[in-house]
C-alpha cells in the first residue's frame, strides 16, 4: 500500500519534470541545468525515501507528499509588502538581512549585494549566471544526488535560493540573517538550494530563521552546500519556527578543508514534521566541527535529526550534542553516525543525545552509531532518555518555588547547554527568550509577527 502511494508520488514528480523542464531551466545557468538530468535519473531510480531505508526508518514520508502542493516554477510577486508585516528582530544584532519567500530570493532590484572586502550575497539563480567559475568549482560537489532521493529531487528542481561568497582573507563584520518565509494562499512546495563558499582564512556567520506566515500547508525540501576553505571559520544557526501543518526536509552538506572550524546548530522550536539531515565531511587535517541541535516539540509534531560525520583525515575533532524535550504525543528521532576512515588516526569524535519525555504518549527513537576503521582514536557516544530529576525538583520546591516554575527551571537548565554554545551573544539571548516562551507554552513565533495565522 505504502509503496503504491509512493510510486504515484514519484510518478507525479517524474511527469512534472518532463513536462515543465523548459520552465525549470529558464533563467538557470547551464551548469545547474546540466546537473538536473543526472539527478533526475537518480531520482527515477531511488524515489522518495521509504522506511526500508535505514536512515529514514522512523519517519513516514508518503502522507507528507500526498498533499497536492503547488510548486512555483517561476518567481511569483507577493501581493503585500512583507517588510510591513514581519520583523524577525534580534535586538542589538546588526545583520545583513535577506529574505527568501517560498524558496525565491525576494529583492527584485538587487539580486546580488556586494559586501565589504568583495564578498557577495544574493540570489542563487543570479549568482550562477554571474559567477560560472565559482559554481563550476563548488556546485554539486558536496551534495551528491546519490545520497538519497530528497537530495536528487532538489538537485533536479533547484532554481533559486541563497548564495554567499566570502573571498580569501575576508572577515564579515556583520552576521548574515536569512529569513525564510513561506506565505501563500494555496498549499506550496518549495525546493530552495543554497550555496555558501568560504575561501581560505575567511570568516562568516549565518543565522537562518524559518517562518510560515499563512495557514496553508507547506513542504520545503532544501539543500544547502557549505564549502569551508582552509583556516576558515563559519557559524551556521538555523531556527525552525513553523506551524503544525508545515513539513521541512532540510539537507545540509558541510565540507571542511584544512584547519577549518565550523559550528552548526539547529534549534527546532516549532513545526509539523521536521527532518534535518546534516552531512559533515572533514576532508583535510586539523578540522574542528561542532554540530548541535535542540528540539522542543508537542502535540503531534515529529522531529527527526540525522547526522553523518565523516572523519576522512587524521587529527580532526568533532563534537555533537542533540537535546530534546517531547511533550503531548510528539515523536522524536535521532540518528547520529560517526565514521572514522582507515587513515584518520588521532581522531577525536564525541556524540551525545539526551531526551526528556514529559508524557507517556511522547516517543523517542535514538540511534547513535560509531563506525571506526582506525585504531588511534578516542570516540564516544551516549544517549539517555529520562525525565526531570525528582531530587532536583524537590530541592527547588523546598525553597518555595512552585512545581510548574520548578519544572520550567529544570527544563530551561536542560536546554542551556546547547544555548551556551551559540557564539553570537545577542542571538543567544534572543533564542533563550524564545525557548523560555516556548517552554511556557506561549506563542513562540517571533514576537513581532503580526500575522496571527494559525494557532500553534
Amino acid at each position, binding site marked *: 500500500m505504502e509503496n503504491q502511494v509512493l510510486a504515484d508520488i514519484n510518478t507525479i514528480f517524474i511527469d512534472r519534470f518532463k513536462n515543465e523542464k523548459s520552465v525549470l531551466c529558464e533563467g538557470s545557468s547551464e551548469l545547474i541545468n546540466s546537473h538536473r538530468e543526472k539527478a533526475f535519473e537518480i531520482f527515477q531510480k531511488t524515489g522518495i525515501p521509504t522506511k526500508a531505508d*535505514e536512515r529514514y526508518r522512523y519517519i513516514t514520508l508518503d502522507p507528507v507528499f500526498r498533499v497536492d502542493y503547488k510548486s512555483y516554477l517561476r518567481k511569483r510577486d507577493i501581493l503585500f509588502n512583507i517588510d510591513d508585516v514581519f520583523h524577525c528582530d534580534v535586538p542589538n544584532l546588526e545583520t545583513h538581512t535577506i529574505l527568501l519567500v517560498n524558496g525565491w530570493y525576494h529583492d527584485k532590484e538587487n539580486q546580488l549585494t556586494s559586501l565589504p572586502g568583495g564578498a557577495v550575497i544574493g540570489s542563487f539563480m543570479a549568482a550562477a549566471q554571474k559567477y560560472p567559475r565559482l559554481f563550476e568549482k563548488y556546485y554539486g560537489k558536496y551534495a551528491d544526488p546519490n545520497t538519497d532521493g530528497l537530495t536528487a529531487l532538489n538537485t533536479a528542481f533547484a532554481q533559486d535560493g541563497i548564495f554567499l561568497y566570502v573571498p580569501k582573507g575576508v572577515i564579515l563584520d556583520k552576521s548574515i540573517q536569512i529569513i525564510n518565509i513561506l506565505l501563500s494562499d494555496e498549499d506550496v512546495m518549495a525546493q530552495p538550494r543554497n550555496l555558501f563558499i568560504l575561501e581560505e582564512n575567511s570568516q562568516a556567520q549565518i543565522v537562518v530563521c524559518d517562518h510560515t506566515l499563512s495557514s496553508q500547508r507547506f513542504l520545503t525540501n532544501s539543500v544547502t552546500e557549505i564549502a569551508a576553505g582552509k583556516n576558515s571559520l563559519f557559524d551556521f544557526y538555523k531556527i525552525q519556527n513553523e506551524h503544525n501543518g508545515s513539513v521541512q526536509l532540510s539537507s545540509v552538506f558541510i565540507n571542511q578543508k584544512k584547519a577549518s572550524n565550523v559550528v552548526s546548530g539547529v534549534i527546532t522550536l516549532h513545526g509539523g514534521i521536521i527532518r534535518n539531515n546534516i552531512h559533515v565531511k572533514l576532508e583535510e587535517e586539523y578540522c574542528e566541527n561542532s554540530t548541535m541541535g535542540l528540539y522542543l516539540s508537542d502535540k503531534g509534531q515529529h522531529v527527526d535529526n540525522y547526522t553523518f560525520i565523516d572523519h576522512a583525515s587524521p587529527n580532526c575533532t568533532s563534537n555533537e550534542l542533540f537535546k530534546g524535550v517531547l511533550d503531548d504525543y510528539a515523536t522524536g528521532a535521532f540518528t547520529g553516525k560517526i565514521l572514522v576512515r*582507515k587513515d584518520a*588516526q588521532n581522531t577525536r569524535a564525541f556524540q551525545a543525545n539526551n*531526551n526528556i*519525555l*514529559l*508524557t*507517556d*504518549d*511522547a*516517543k*523517542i*527513537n*535514538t*540511534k*547513535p*552509531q*560509531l*563506525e*571506526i*576503521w*582506525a*585504531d*588511534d*582514536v*578516542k*570516540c*564516544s*557516544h*551516549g*544517549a*539517555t*532518555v*529520562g*525525565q526531570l530529576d525528582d531530587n532536583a525538583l524537590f530541592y527547588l520546591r523546598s525553597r518555595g518555588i512552585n512545581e510548574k516554575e520548578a519544572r520550567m527551571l529544570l527544563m530551561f537548565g536542560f536546554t542551556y547547554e546547547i544555548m551556551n554554545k551559540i557564539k553570537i551573544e545577542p542571538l543567544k539571548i534572543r533564542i533563550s527568550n524564545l525557548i523560555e516562551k516556548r517552554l511556557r507554552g506561549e506563542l513562540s513565533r517571533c514576537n513581532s509577527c503580526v500575522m496571527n495565522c494559525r494557532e500553534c
Partner: protein
Amino acid sequence: MEKEQDKIISEVTGGEYKYGFYTNVETEFIPKGLNEDTIRLISSKKGEPEFMLEFRLKAFEKWKTMKMPEWAQLNIPEIDFQNIIYYAAPKKQKELGSIDEIDPKLKATFDKLGIPLDEQKRLSGVAVDAVIDSVSVKTTFKDSLADKGIIFCSFSEAVHEHPDLIKKYMGSVVPVGDNYFAALNSAVFSDGSFVYIPKGVRCPMELSTYFRINAANTGQFERTLIVADEGAYVSYLEGCTAPQRDENQLHAAIVEIIAEKDADVKYSTVQNWYPGDKDGKGGIYNFVTKRGICRGDNSKISWTQVETGSAITWKYPSCILKGNNSVGEFYSVAVTNNHQQADTGTKMIHLGKNTKSTIVSKGISAGKSQNSYRGLVKVTKKAENSRNFSQCDSLLLGSNCGAHTFPYIQVDNKSSIVEHEATTSKIGEDQIFYCNQRGISTEDAIGLIVNGYAKEVLNQLPMEFAVEAQKLLQISLEGSVG
C-alpha cells in the same frame, strides 16, 4: 618500538587454534542437499512423532519464502544450502548402558577437550550433555538430577519422553519464521539439550552442553530449550569447538529460555568455534538465535558470553521482559582477530512494569577483523518505571581492524530511564609505560590491561568457565600492542 609491536601482533595473529584436531569415528551421513525429503528423512531417522514433522515442514515452508538477512555489518560469502550435509551422527554400536560403552575414540575426544564425561572422576560439579555433530552422545548425572525432578536430557529424548513439555514450549520464544536462520534450524535441527527445572527447585550443579563439530561438510543445527518453572534456579553453560578445516562450516542454533514467576536462569557461553586461519581461510559461520522470555513476575534471565571463535558471528541473545519486575542482563566479551567478523549484541524488550535490564558489551578487535555491537532497547508504553543501562566499549589493537556500534533505543513512556554509553579507544601508551616501568613486559602488560578491561564480564561467569575464558583471552590477545 614499531617493529617490536608488529612482531608481537604477528605472534598473536599467528596463535594456533588448539582444538583443531579431528577424531576419526565412524559417522553416518545423509546425502547433501535440502528439500522436503531431507526433512522427512531426518525426522524418520530420529523416529519422531507426527507433530515434530509438521513443525519442521512448516518451518521449511517459511524458510523458502525468506531471504538471507543483509543488514549486519558482515561480509558473508554466498552459502550454498544445497551443498551441506544436514545430518551426521557417530555410528553407535549398540545402546549405551554406562560410560564404558561409549566409543573410546569419542571419549578420548572429550577428554582431550577437557570435558568430563566420566561421572566417577568428576572434578567439578558439572553435569554435561555432549553433542557431537548432530547428535547428543552422552548426558552425565542424569539420574541424580532426576531425583530432584530435574529433566536434563538430549532434545530427541525429550521429544519422546516429554512430548507435552516440548509441544508447550518449543517455538514459543523463537517462532519458526522468526528469521532466516531460525527457520532453517527449525526445519532441520538434529538434536540439542532440554532442561526442565520444576517448581521451587534450585538446580544443585551447573548444567552444561558441549558442542563439537567433527565431520566435514556438515552443518550443525542444534536446539536448546530451557524451562525454569516457578521459583526455580539454574545455571547453564555452553561450550563449543570444531576441527581446523579449509572450508567453512555452518552452525545455526536456537536457544530458547522460559523463566516463569520468580525463576532465575543464568546462561553462559564460551564460544570457541574454529575461527579460520590467519588468512581468513576456513572457520565456522555461527548464526545463532538466542532468546529468553521472563514470563512471570520477578523472573530473571542473564546471558553471559565470551566470543572468541568463528569466522563470522551473528548472534543476539535477547530478553523479553514480560513479567512485572523482571530483570534481563547481557554481558559480553567479543574478541575478533585475523579475518574474523562479529556482529553481536542483544535486544531488551521491556513489556512489564518496573522491568530492568543491563547491557555490558566489550569488543576487542585485532588483526584485520571487524567487530560490531548491535542492540535494541525497547520500552513499550505499558512498561512503566523501566530502567536500562547499556555500556558498549570497543578496544582496537592494530590499525587494520574496525569496531562499530549500532545501538537502537526506543522509548514510549515518560517514567522509564534509558542510558547508553559507548567508547572506542586503543590501549593507552601511558598504561603500557606504567607497567613497563614496573618491570612488566609489554606482552604481559597488554594481557593485564585486556583482562582488566573484560573483567566486568568475566566476573559474571561461573568459576569453571571464568578460568577457561581468561585463558582464552590470554591465548588470543596476550602481547598485542595497539
